[in-house]
């Protein structure tokens, strides 16, 4: 790649730096979702905080994460299908 024309305003972008930013962005997305799911699942799985996380709560947290991701994928898939079968809807969505 011609480094002199890569990104306007920054001059040449250090490939090492670019890689670093990609990796950190990925890690940050992961962490952000962990924060979000912990908060959500806490509501569903936690009664009164006890002296340790019991196995019932632990199982609940694991299931909660799995079902949250399933839900997110289900919604994404269904939206995709709806868009295919109802093009008018897709136009209003993409605006």
């Amino acid at each position: 790649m011609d480094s002199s024309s890569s990104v306007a305003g920054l001059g040449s972008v250090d490939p090492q730096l670019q890689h670093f930013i990609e990796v950190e962005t990925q890690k940050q997305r992961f962490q952000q979702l962990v924060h979000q799911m912990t908060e959500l699942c806490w509501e569903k799985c936690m009664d009164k905080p006890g002296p340790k996380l019991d196995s019932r709560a632990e199982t609940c947290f694991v299931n909660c994460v799995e079902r949250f991701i399933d839900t997110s994928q289900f919604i994404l898939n269904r939206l995709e299908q709806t868009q295919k079968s109802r093009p008018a809807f897709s136009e209003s969505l993409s605006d």
Partner: protein
Amino acid sequence: MEGSFGSEFGGAAGAGGGKLDPGLIMEQVKVQIAVANAQELLQRMTNKCFRKCIGKPGSALDNSEQKCIAMCMDRYMDAWNTVSRAYNSRLQRERANM
């Protein structure tokens, strides 16, 4: 994205000679990310444990409330780690299936 990073850190990192030091930028970014994550955790943990432990706010945090908050903090960390592990293994499984 790159542009905003460049302009934000350019001032401090480029003070030496107009050229950005990638190593320095990476260090600064790492520190800022760590701080942001700690704040995020602190804020959510405070909200959750306040809800669980403070029924009717009294004139001071009483002993049982403090005990509850301490326990709640530890359990919240356990929950965070459990969620992190579960999410990670899900990602791993999905990557293996691709």
